[in-house]
């Protein structure tokens, strides 16, 4: 049974009703400038609270020698970097194979304009590799 097929319990129904109510309330609030500010401030408070909670959770987990969310995130980031490097390398290898096969190097290994990975810059002065920013 998938998550979708599971019958809804009282908790799910309450959460669903609560969300619907909050969503309707937010719509009424968002129609007014002051209401919009109030919703934004409430969202900001909630996000700060969550961040603080995550910070405490991380400290507790580290204190007992367990990895926290930030540790998993760091591993995921390193894996993403490795995946990209492998992609870049295999592209270079393919381009080399094409050149070696005598089909010419022109355009080899380059992504077409519409293909994923092709960067589009509206203004050249800002051009840089965003992955090197941090």
């Amino acid at each position, binding site marked *: 049974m998938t998550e979708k097929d599971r019958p809804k319990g009282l908790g799910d129904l309450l959460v669903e009703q609560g969300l619907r109510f909050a969503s309707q309330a937010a719509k009424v609030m968002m129609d007014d400038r002051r209401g919009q500010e109030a919703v934004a401030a409430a969202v900001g408070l909630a996000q700060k609270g969550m961040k603080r909670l995550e910070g405490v959770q991380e400290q507790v987990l580290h204190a007992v020698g367990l990895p926290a969310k930030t540790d998993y995130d760091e591993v995921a980031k390193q894996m*993403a970097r490795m*995946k990209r490097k492998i992609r870049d390398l295999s592209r270079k290898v393919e381009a080399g194979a094409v050149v070696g096969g005598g089909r010419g190097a022109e355009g080899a290994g380059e992504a077409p304009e519409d293909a994923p990975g092709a960067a589009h810059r509206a203004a050249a002065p800002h051009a840089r590799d965003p992955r090197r920013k941090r």
Partner: protein
Amino acid sequence: MRAVRFASGAWIAAVVEAVNRHPDLPRALAGLGADLAAIVEAEPGVLPRPIAAWGRQAQGRVAEWRLLEDEDEILELEPAYVVRAPYRLWKDLLLQRLDPVQAALSGRLRVKGDLEGLVRRASYRYIMDGALRAVATEFPDEVRR
């Protein structure tokens, strides 16, 4: 006007161009994070693979953008905002059948980053709406096979 396929490179380019033309854009972007990634989750039979795009703002305009080869690139890019939703929800948002703030607050549109800043700028939604109106969009579920 020739329709452009939703979330294709040509479509994003056209939307970015239209957004960048709006005189109120610098005011809307002021104080926001530098970059954003958006993910359209796959839908069987309509969108076989998820689509991920990244864009960066500078000097009050979208300075650069690109379609990502792999959604995981977002982990490496660490953009200030990550917005993720299923294909149908994006379609509802683009067709203005759904309010983005409501969708974000209800958790249907998942936003990672300073949501407070985005809610504060909800009144600038007309910039995006205008840009989307300027681009004829072809949705993959409406294309005759």
